[in-house]
């Protein structure tokens, strides 16, 4: 059942026929995850005042824990029994399902990225989940849960080397060089200095103060709970998940390792980057800090289990020099300086009274760059070779102002390379030029 202990090549017919299993402890982990989910739901309903009928909160909590654990373990065991995976010369096949059998084939060359996630519970058992991303809409992610961490790493190495058309890699992990490690305190300071955190924190404090002042705790509770959960969500997303954020470079791509409770290890292959967004929030800009986000086909198609897309973070906080170095790693020779900018004209102000000053687009031989944003500045960088399509749009109001919008389409994700409300001739010229550049880059 350990994939690393057997040869993952094609020269092993029994393996081919029978397939490999995930780790047997999967059932236990699955059960624990269910129990956590069940009791988390219950804690929420206890806090808002309604429990489970006449049962006391503690008893129902215990019931949820045990029930969730048993049910999850049972289902986890059954699905584990019926899940097998096969690695052969051309594809990875995963068969699963008890009643409805399903078999999924993953051709290696279609793999966009391979990530390893260690949810807290699985981490306690030394297990990890392997996530294989392919391009496409929903359901483009394939998970193998759970494998022993070392096996997951082996499998990832095999898949990534096959995805690049190479034969099975050598036994040891490839050589990696550290690019940067973002210290947790820096992430925390960055979070504290972001506007939405400040808003949520100040809002909570004001509400608590008002509640005490007027002595109406119950009324204020209605406002404090959503604000507090928003605050908790911000902290979970920006601090806990980005804890000990480590970015390193390997032969085939960048590797991200992050997380305090649940660890995640992502691989971003060099040639699979669809676009990069440089975000400069209001307060950060004054301190010279930036955040980098990246478009990988398949990443944003489904939110994470927590309903976020923190996996698209390339660098949670960095100074411009480091950010530029990381961009250069992923899109070599892309320059964000010395560009000829096509700015939004002054007459476009009715569409964005303040923001029009900050809108521009530009392009060099490698990338298309679009910039916008007043409170949070966003610079989107899309390589010409990844341009999916280009669109020119004009509504009636825009026509009166002789402006038009040009958009360079990328796969779903944080990068939106739009040049909105530009001069109409300039927008059309940008569209034509972008088509020519995209054509040249594919040739």
């Amino acid at each position, binding site marked *: 059942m350990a994939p690393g202990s057997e040869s993952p090549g094609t020269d092993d017919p029994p393996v081919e026929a029978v397939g490999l299993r995930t780790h047997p402890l999967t059932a236990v982990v699955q059960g624990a995850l269910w129990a956590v989910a069940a009791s988390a739901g219950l804690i929420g309903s206890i806090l808002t005042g309604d429990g489970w009928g006449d049962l006391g909160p503690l008893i129902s909590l215990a019931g949820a824990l045990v029930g969730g654990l048993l049910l999850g373990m049972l289902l986890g065991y059954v699905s584990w029994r019926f899940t097998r995976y096969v690695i052969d010369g051309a594809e990875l096949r995963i068969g699963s399902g008890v009643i409805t059998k399903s078999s999924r084939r993953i051709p290696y060359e279609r793999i966009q990225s391979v990530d390893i996630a260690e949810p807290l519970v699985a981490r306690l058992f030394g297990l990890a989940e392997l996530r294989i991303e392919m391009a496409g809409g929903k359901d483009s992610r394939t998970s193998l849960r759970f494998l022993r961490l070392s096996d997951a790493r082996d499998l990832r190495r095999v898949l990534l080397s096959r995805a690049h058309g190479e034969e099975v890699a050598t036994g040891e992990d490839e050589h990696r060089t550290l690019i940067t490690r973002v210290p947790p305190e820096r992430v925390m300071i960055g979070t504290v200095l972001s506007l939405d955190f400040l808003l949520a924190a100040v809002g909570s404090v004001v509400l608590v103060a008002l509640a005490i002042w007027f002595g109406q705790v119950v009324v204020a509770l209605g406002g404090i709970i959503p604000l507090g959960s928003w605050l908790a969500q911000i902290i979970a997303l920006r601090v806990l998940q980005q804890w000990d954020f480590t970015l390193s470079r390997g032969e085939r791509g960048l590797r991200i390792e992050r997380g305090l409770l649940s660890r995640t290890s992502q691989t971003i292959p060099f040639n699979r980057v669809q676009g990069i967004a440089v975000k400069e929030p209001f307060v950060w800009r004054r301190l010279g800090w930036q955040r980098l986000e990246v478009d990988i086909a398949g990443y944003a198609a489904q939110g994470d289990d927590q309903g976020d897309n923190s996996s698209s973070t390339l660098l949670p906080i960095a100074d411009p020099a480091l950010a530029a170095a990381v961009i250069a790693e992923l899109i070599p020779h892309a320059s964000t300086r010395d560009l000829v900018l096509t700015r939004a004209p002054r007459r476009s102000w009715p569409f964005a009274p303040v923001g029009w000053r900050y809108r521009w687009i530009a392009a060099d031989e490698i990338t298309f760059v679009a910039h916008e944003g007043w409170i949070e500045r966003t610079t989107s960088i899309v390589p010409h070779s990844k341009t999916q*399509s280009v669109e020119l749009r004009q*509504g009636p109001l825009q026509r009166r102002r002789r402006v038009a919008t040009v958009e360079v389409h990328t796969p779903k994700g944080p990068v939106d390379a739009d040049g909105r409300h530009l001069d109409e001739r300039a927008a059309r010229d940008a569209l034509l030029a972008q088509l020519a550049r995209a*054509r040249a880059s*594919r040739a």
Partner: protein
Amino acid sequence: MDNLFAPVDGTWQGVSPRLATVRRILIVSLAAGVALVGLVLALVPGLAAWIQVSGWVLVAASVAGGGWGWRWARRNQRSWGYTENADDLLVTRGVMFKRLVAIPYGRMQFVDVQAGPLERAFGIATVTLHTASPETAAQVPGLDAAEATRLRNRLTELGEAHGAGL
């Protein structure tokens, strides 16, 4: 500025006028349905006065909406156009809100041809070209069935020839 949405080279190929017919049938039947409800409300005796008034309002609105839709269907059908360049497919549409989308053939992931029962009765179909980006809105409705098949085959062929992966 008229030539803002002109094709890069060549001319726009229009879509079949039967698209307008199909849409008019849909619009008129919807408007007729709403008007019928309005009439019932307005004429059934014993209902409150405000219900009768709103019934008449409904009738008026559906007539006005139907009339507007009748004109819209023709104008919109005329605004559609597509052209196959050497490297890209260009699609334009819209009268008030104009759009021009250009999709390099090599970026195409797959092509759909769709035709509902009413469209089939009038012998037209919709061809949709999908890329890896959900923003790409490259559909051409109201194509002759034969032209739709030809366009699909041609696009698939070109997509394979220009295929550039992701």
